[in-house]
């Protein structure tokens, strides 16, 4: 989960800037931080002096002010406005740049759905929760959502873009640093919003070519880890419809694996692979739930069911009360 | 309180004007199609609403303060329409 940090200080790793744009954004942020610190120090010191000097009972002289109030008001209003306009300008210019992709940028399709990223490259290669990029090559992402709003967020690029159901949105960038960077879903999208994360890998040109060849060779075979495949199938078959929340029709599956489940006939069963497999394909009578789960036998292949089991097993991060 | 001088006459005249305007609006449906129908029918609607507010609601007799309050709602509605429009209408401009 660690990104290559620029520096570590007090247990905190600082953020990499993996593109020209990111460095510009950092510049503006630095300017803002500098200005803010200056303002706060100025006001803080000024106020402290005033507080001490003019505390009740102090013998400091308190003659009426000689300068006209309106002059003072105008001065600090205009001063503040000038500083603000400067930052408005810096931010707007960068924003407009980031909204205009360079001609000829490679296009990659990214689809978001509860709760995964589905990446498709021009050559047909497909990945989940991952994006591979070639160093110093601008790319444009075409983003779409199949359900709710998600947001594609790569801190190292200082960029984020919402995925809006019903329309396509785009973003572009030109990574100039190799490495693996975190990808987050930044727009709240339901139960597993926090797990809708992935990796953006920037590779040197030759490494990228090698990756593309090997990935291309797997055409369609989706060389995904079983867990990720399970996650995809889980989404595809709409399991989350009933296993997605507190008030859902079905029991929560998070943390289920390895626990003892009480069945409606009063007996207990250990939730291991076999139990899960059975539950998925034929249903088990879990105590406290109406047996409304459809049977998936004949619909879900065994190998797929296995992957789903792996996924359910991995959901055990959640402790069940 | 000052008893208003208004009598039946102006009210009925307003009503007649409103009905004429209604017939005019309704007639736009029979006209040959065109984008300009909407501005016309909305313009007439605005006129009608103005008549109702000015004479039936007696805005005519009210002090400036009340008129400002009556206008404020419309002004804020305008803000809502204009700034949201600024988004929708310029979305495709930037390429």
């Amino acid at each position, binding site marked *: 989960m660690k990104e290559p940090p620029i520096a570590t200080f007090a247990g905190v790793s600082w953020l990499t800037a993996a593109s020209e744009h990111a460095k510009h*954004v950092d510049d503006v942020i630095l300017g803002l931080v500098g200005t803010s610190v200056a303002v706060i120090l100025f006001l803080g010191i000024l106020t402290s002096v005033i507080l001490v000097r003019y505390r009740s009972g102090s013998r400091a002289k308190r003659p009426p002010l000689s300068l006209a109030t309106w002059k003072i008001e105008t001065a600090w209003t205009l001063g503040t406005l000038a500083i603000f306009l400067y930052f408005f300008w810096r*931010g707007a210019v*960068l924003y*407009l740049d980031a909204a205009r992709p360079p001609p000829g940028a490679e296009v990659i399709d990214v689809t978001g759905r509860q709760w995964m990223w589905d990446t498709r490259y021009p050559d047909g290669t497909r990945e989940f929760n991952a994006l591979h990029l070639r160093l110093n090559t601008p790319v444009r992402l075409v983003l779409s959502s199949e359900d709710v709003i998600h947001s594609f967020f790569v801190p190292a690029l200082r960029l984020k873009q919402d995925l809006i159901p019903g329309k396509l949105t785009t973003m572009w960038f030109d990574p100039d640093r190799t490495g693996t960077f975190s990808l987050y879903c930044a727009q709240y999208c339901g139960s597993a919003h926090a797990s809708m994360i992935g990796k953006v890998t920037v590779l040197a040109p030759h490494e990228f070519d090698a990756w593309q060849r090997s990935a291309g060779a797997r055409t369609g075979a989706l060389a995904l880890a079983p867990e990720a495949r399970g996650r995809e199938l889980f989404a595809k078959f709409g399991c989350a419809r009933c296993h997605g929340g507190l008030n859902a029709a079905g029991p929560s599956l998070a943390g289920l694996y390895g626990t003892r489940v009480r069945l409606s006939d009063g007996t207990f069963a250990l939730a291991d692979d076999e139990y899960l497999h059975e539950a998925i394909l034929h249903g088990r009578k879990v105590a406290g739930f109406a047996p409304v789960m459809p049977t998936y036998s004949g619909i879900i292949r065994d190998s797929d069911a296995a992957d789903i089991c792996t996924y359910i097993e991995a959901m055990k991060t959640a402790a069940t009360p | 309180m000052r008893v208003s001088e208004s009598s039946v006459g102006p009210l009925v005249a307003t009503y007649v004007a409103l009905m004429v305007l209604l017939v005019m609006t309704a007639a736009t449906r029979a006209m040959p199609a065109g984008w300009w129908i909407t501005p016309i029918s909305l313009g007439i609607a605005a006129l009608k609403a103005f008549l109702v507010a000015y004479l039936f609601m007696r805005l005519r007799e009210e002090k400036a303060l009340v008129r400002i309050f009556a206008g404020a709602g419309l002004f804020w509605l305008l803000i809502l329409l204009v700034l949201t429009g600024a988004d929708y209408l310029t979305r495709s401009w930037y390429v």
Partner: protein
Amino acid sequence: MIASEQGDGPSYLQESTVRSWLGTLDHKRIGILYLFTITFFFAIGASAAAMMRIQLAYPAAGLVTSDAYNRLFTLHGVIMVWFFLIPSIPAVLGNFVLPLAIGARDVAFPRLNLASWYLFVGGGALALYSILVGGVDTGWTFYTPYSSTYSNGHVMAMAGGIFVAGFGSIATGINFIVTVHKLRAPGLTWFRLPLFVWSIYATSIILVLATPVLAITLTLMALERVAGVGIFDPRIGGDPLLFQHLFWFYSHPAVYIMILPGMGVISELVACFSKKAVFGYHAMAFSILSIAGLGFLVWGHHMFVTSQSVYAGVAFSFLSFLVAVPSAIKVFNWVATMHRGAIEFTTPFLYALGFIALFTIGGLTGIFLATLAVDVHLHDTFFVIAHFHYIMVGGGVMAYMGGIHYWWPKISGRMYPEAWGRVAAVTIFVGFNLTFFPQYILGYLGMPRRYWIYPEQFHTLNLVSSAGALVLAIGYILPLIYLPWSFFKGARAGTNPWGATGLEWLAASPPAEHNFRETPVVTRPAYDYPPL
């Protein structure tokens, strides 16, 4: 300042039957009713905050499940915004102080005033119901299509609660507007009004013009959810962004509903405890009005990364910088007010200092967010969380606490224990910074909000933040103990224990039922302190 002194009738607290409280038309009693209700809601919102902070102390703490966490932040946001902070200063202190401060015997529509409180309680009951039967997991922003189609929480009851309480807010707003226009004491011209009255007036205008848009927006979302009559549904060509426009058209002005009354309170506190007129009174009054007005023009800054038109983005960013200018004016004027004053470090004044410091930091980080390219990075991260907690908790809640302490002698007729007051104020300040400053850094580093588990690299700062919340909790619990205590046991307060100006300090402590036996006549400007 005043031409007539008051004779005392029986105090407004005299009658003590439950009926006399629940059926009261006295603005002061209604203020007290609000005081109790919002304290109750604060406890609920704060308990949720406490649970969230425990969960976030570790990357995968396991106190709650993801669904439970999602319900926690939603209930925390909804309760804190609509059932605590929005009614806090306007409905508690506004109700109590406003008529007194303008020399009126009550608000213009006392019955409507009581009805507002019942609407508020009714809305709160619906919200509580929705929490008890399982909660809502949409976030306080209710974005569609998640809220309308995908969420399996009890969205309807929650939205209904906000809707009903919203009408309570509107009624309060109408009441205050008319009261300020029509019930000012003779001689109390607009530019003799205390800034607190100005701020409540401006707030009421926002309440009246913005809240109905929230009401219709929630109605549309609800119709889409229950009846399938959807106009945001992308499947029939609806646009989820339209929902966001409508929502933020209300919710950005709403953030000024939460801070303007606070600014009004701070002006009173700074003037009173510097024993000096507010510096630049006119500039202060106009900045209140311009914040209220310009505040309606900036809502699109919540939508910079949604694919809203870039031109709209630029315009909204520009306007956001503009609306920040009057806030800056206010900060400078407060500092200038202290200059050459005679400063007394009472508890309310400590809260005022805390407000100025934290509001400035929160406001300056608002400037970060208004800067387009910077917001693209910081949007929906903990930076935003830190920004608004600095303003809403560091600003809003501090001002509320300061105001409660300042007017406590008037409300209860007794003094609170000064030493404990100062200890609590300092504890809150320290705990607050510990809790929320690390969140700025977390946000910059990329930690998204509304994450119930998070990557390892964010651990250290989150742990600090959670520890801070503990300190903060202690700070908040102290007044909950000593204020009720002082209500019965505190030293008696005279009519004007602070030596403050303002008509409310002419009425008895606690005031009689209709405040003033004889309507005071005002002949001088506000904050007319004798020269030092």
